[in-house]
């Protein structure tokens, strides 16, 4: 009986988190179109609902009812599996993100503000996000099209290259909080904005943000889908629901990397000043995530695309060495701080 209730609560939690994330994904597309059009001095979607608010719904319905086309000569099994292989790693990471501070007590049942708090939370997210490259690579290969294959190869190369500095940038916060658990990391940053790791790890934060943009294949690093060179990249041959899976995965990944940035560098659900703690923690968390998402869209409207060789050279020759030096310096400082604290 006890076990049954625990399982039920967990399933409901998963459903709630998935529901919230997917709603955010839908309205992130809307927000992106609105913000972009505002920056370009036009209106954006206005027809469906007041100020086009129902546009994501209409887009979803359109994609759902579209004809499902599998190109001749494509490998059907892998062609169908690839979108799922992209979407699942993007969504599975949300299981360890702590959205708030307080657990809800209903009788004997405790509802936590996270699905689970495993003690390797950050590694778990990195491990599963590294599997996202498979969907991209296989989707490109199974489509039996040159554009798709080249797009898939480019994209996978980019994701693999930028995963390294991304992981190394996160080592800084891990060293400072002495934990891989996202909850412990948030708690370690309590007590005001000057305790956030962005203050002690500014270099790591910049590296993380740049690599996160590259990881999610967003402008200015969206070479895998450079329209002028590769049509639409690895999902050229996809349509309907399968295409929408890739689309969902891209936006879910954007939200996930923003959540990790908030937890690792911006104090998670902590208020910036002790005086502001009367505002619920989840509001702070969402506000920080929304700010980072706005920053992403802002970048898209501002920066031109890089050339592919520039992208790879930048990843390996600039980002990786800086990230390594940062890890080294942080560990040395941390070591002497610990020695000093013991005395």
């Amino acid at each position, binding site marked *: 009986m006890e076990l049954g209730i625990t399982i039920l609560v967990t399933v409901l939690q998963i459903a709630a988190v998935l529901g919230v994330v997917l709603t955010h994904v839908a309205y992130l597309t809307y927000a992106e179109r609105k913000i972009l059009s505002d920056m370009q001095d036009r209106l954006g979607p206005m027809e469906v609902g007041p100020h086009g608010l129902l546009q994501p719904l209409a887009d979803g319905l359109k994609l759902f009812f579209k004809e499902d086309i599998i190109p001749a000569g494509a490998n059907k099994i892998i062609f169908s599996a690839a979108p799922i292989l992209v979407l699942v790693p993007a969504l599975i990471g949300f299981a360890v993100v702590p959205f708030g501070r307080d657990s809800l007590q209903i009788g004997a049942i405790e509802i936590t503000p996270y699905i689970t708090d495993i003690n390797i939370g950050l590694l778990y997210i990195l491990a599963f996000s590294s599997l996202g490259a498979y969907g991209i690579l296989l989707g490109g290969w199974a489509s*039996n099209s040159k554009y798709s294959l080249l797009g898939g190869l480019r994209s996978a190369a980019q994701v*693999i290259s930028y995963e390294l500095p991304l992981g190394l940038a996160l080592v800084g916060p891990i060293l400072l909080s002495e934990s891989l658990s996202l909850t412990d990391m948030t708690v370690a940053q309590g007590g005001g904005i000057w305790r956030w790791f962005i203050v002690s790890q500014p270099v790591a934060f910049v590296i993380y943000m740049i690599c996160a943009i590259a990881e999610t294949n967003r402008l200015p690093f969206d070479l895998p889908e450079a329209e002028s060179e590769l049509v639409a990249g690895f999902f050229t041959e996809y349509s309907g629901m399968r295409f929408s899976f890739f689309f969902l995965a891209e936006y879910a990944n954007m939200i996930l990397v923003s959540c990790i940035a908030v937890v690792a560098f911006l104090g998670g659900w902590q208020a910036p000043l002790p005086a502001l703690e009367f505002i619920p923690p989840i509001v702070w968390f969402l506000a920080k995530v929304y700010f980072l998402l706005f920053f992403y869209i802002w970048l898209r409207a501002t920066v031109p695309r890089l050339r592919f060789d520039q992208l790879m050279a930048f990843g390996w020759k600039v980002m990786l060495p800086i990230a390594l030096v940062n890890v080294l310096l942080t560990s040395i400082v941390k070591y002497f701080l610990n020695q000093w604290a013991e005395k």
Partner: protein
Amino acid sequence: MAAQLLFFYFGGVTIAGAIVAVTSRNIVYSALSLLVAFIHIAGIYVLLNAEFIAAVQILVYAGAILVLYLFVLMLFNPSEEKLYLHKQAKVGIFLGVVVLFMMLFAGYKTEIIGKGGPLTAQAVKEMGHTRVIGNALFTDYLFPFEVASLILLVAMFGAIVLAGRGVHRKKGPAGRIDLSYRDKLPKKSSETPEEVIVGR
């Protein structure tokens, strides 16, 4: 009970994935079943309270090494390379048997006859797996750890030397790679460029 059932699930799928990886005719399917095997090995690590190793297993083997394999396999024509691959079967079986015996011997020496060390599953759970493994690697096993990284470094140098052979850097403003060595290579007999065949 549940742990045992899970162990049989993870173990069974790992073995099935490994068998498909070796026997499949389509090399991309081989790589994918190897991926399935890797992820299920991570599941076994989780059952052993070794979460850190489980995550690193997925991160390194599934997320990095196998992706690079897939890169190569996708640009590979299986029908041309089949003969070459099947020549290696005898050597492969021999090496497999040797490694199997070594593993059985190691298991026999440590787990069944020998005493357990201070780091039992319970102790590891109390201290936190990541902390235990960090302490062990950087104190008692520092030398083997450094030797292992040195071996990897040597392999990396080897790969760079092999890949960079014949490519000279020209001192130009853009610093581009000089590919003029290609003209000095022996010309192919046919004038038409070979069509790139994508393995399927």
